[in-house]
């Protein structure tokens, strides 16, 4: 019996995990989400900017991690639009450009009064990883001569007077890995001294904590939890808050399974010794 439980059929484990995700999604409990300092700092970085401030938002994730990163990017976009700030989107990640399209589509739905080129613009994807922010700081217009529609930056209303990276009031990267946050931390923040907000997946958050601690970045949003905290602060109704309940139960389920497996292994060892 003990051996049977230790070697539990993986399909049973899959079913338990599936139920632990589906049930909370269908029956939300409205659990309270506590806001951590690193997320509050990210929120404040946008909040303290005056209207018409230029924000450079780097969308450095693909569809596989969009569930974690898109809610925080969307909540930040909504916050910027509500404060009449201007957002220029770019991507170091090849798939980022298509996800910028999706963010822009959502902005258009949420803020029908906001216009492309006036309130937000898509500068698109640039290949070159670390070389992209490096060249952005040396010659911004040389790096992005046009937006993705082929309009020269001098003809894009919100970027008409922009020639240097330093004219942006804030840079934010929502990053799933390489290239992304690390390239912006090394070059955009450390080399050019730009205030940088980093949003990243839960798995990567511990890696970026030292940069937040040393104040190399102004804020850090970690995973779906961070996105849910951001939604709470900004009052934005997104998918992260609901997703956190499913994640809560999934974490408890996996933790419970690990405890069970350890107890069973311990019991088997104890029996072995008795024999």
């Amino acid at each position, binding site marked *: 019996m003990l051996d049977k439980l230790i070697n539990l059929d993986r399909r049973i484990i899959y079913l*338990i995990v599936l139920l632990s995700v589906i049930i909370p999604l269908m029956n939300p409990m409205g659990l309270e989400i*506590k806001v951590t300092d690193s997320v509050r700092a990210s929120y404040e970085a946008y909040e303290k900017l005056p209207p018409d401030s230029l924000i450079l938002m780097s969308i450095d994730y693909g*569809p*596989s991690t969009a569930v974690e990163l898109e809610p925080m990017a969307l909540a930040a976009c909504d916050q910027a639009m509500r404060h009449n700030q201007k957002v220029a989107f770019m991507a170091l990640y090849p798939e980022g450009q298509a996800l910028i399209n999706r963010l822009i589509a959502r902005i258009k739905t949420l803020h029908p009064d906001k216009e492309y080129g006036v309130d937000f613009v898509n500068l698109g994807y640039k290949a070159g990883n670390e070389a992209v922010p490096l060249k952005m700081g040396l010659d911004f217009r040389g790096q992005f001569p046009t937006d993705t529609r082929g309009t020269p930056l001098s003809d894009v209303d919100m970027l008409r007077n922009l020639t240097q990276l330093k004219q942006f009031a804030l840079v934010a990267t929502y990053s799933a890995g390489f290239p992304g946050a690390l390239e912006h931390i090394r070059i955009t923040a450390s080399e050019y001294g730009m205030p940088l907000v980093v949003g990243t997946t839960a798995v990567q958050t511990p890696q970026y904590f030292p940069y937040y*601690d040393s104040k190399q970045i102004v804020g850090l949003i970690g995973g779906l939890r961070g996105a849910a905290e951001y939604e709470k602060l900004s009052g934005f109704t997104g998918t992260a808050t609901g997703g956190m*309940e499913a994640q*809560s139960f999934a*974490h408890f389920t996996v933790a419970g399974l690990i405890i*069970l*497996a350890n107890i069973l292994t311990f019991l088997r060892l104890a029996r072995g010794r008795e024999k």
Partner: protein
Amino acid sequence: MLRRQIPLFITFVSGLLLIVQYYIYPLNFIGKNLAGWFQAITAFAYVLAAISLFAVNGKKIRDRAPGWIYNLVLLLSLVGTLYIGLFIHYLGQGYPGYQPIDEGTYFDWMFQYIYNPLSATMFSLTAFFIASASYRAFKARSVESTLLLGSAFLVMIFRVPLGEAIWGAVMPTSWDITVFIEDIIMGGFNNAGQRAIQIASAIGLISVSLKIILGVERSYLGGD
């Protein structure tokens, strides 16, 4: 002979120039120009990757290697995506400079409704594998693994709202588990460990880079 010496010479000169320009301000323009070159090389790497993909998969299809049908699907997907992305404009829509990958195009539709769900599904499946693997492998067999298990438990359980709610109901309000995890585990132990890893890997990277610049490490040339 020259086939090895010329790349070694180019590597030495490029590496040296990039180091020197960083410290001597009037030579900064070299770094600026080389950054542009690097971007061009990166873009060409995509073309090279596509050619390599055709060569590797094409050979398997030609030889009817086991599972060749999947190689065929891969190549057809590549060609189809390239064709739609490069040449098909969405009729009836447009503004000056309208790109085939903009919102509302066939390429965008394909990305949003084919690639996007497939990619999200693949990534979501890892949750099931992780649960199954944790059940079988995550055992407290030694002091180190018990410490790892303990800290993983604290973060996993108490960095989610359900764990915080349970802690709040059981413990006094002055004992805030979120602060403990944020300040002690993430800001303390984690930061110390991460910094050690990052500093050590940076020193390692400098050492390897110097070896490459000076021609001691030559494995990137192939052969020995």
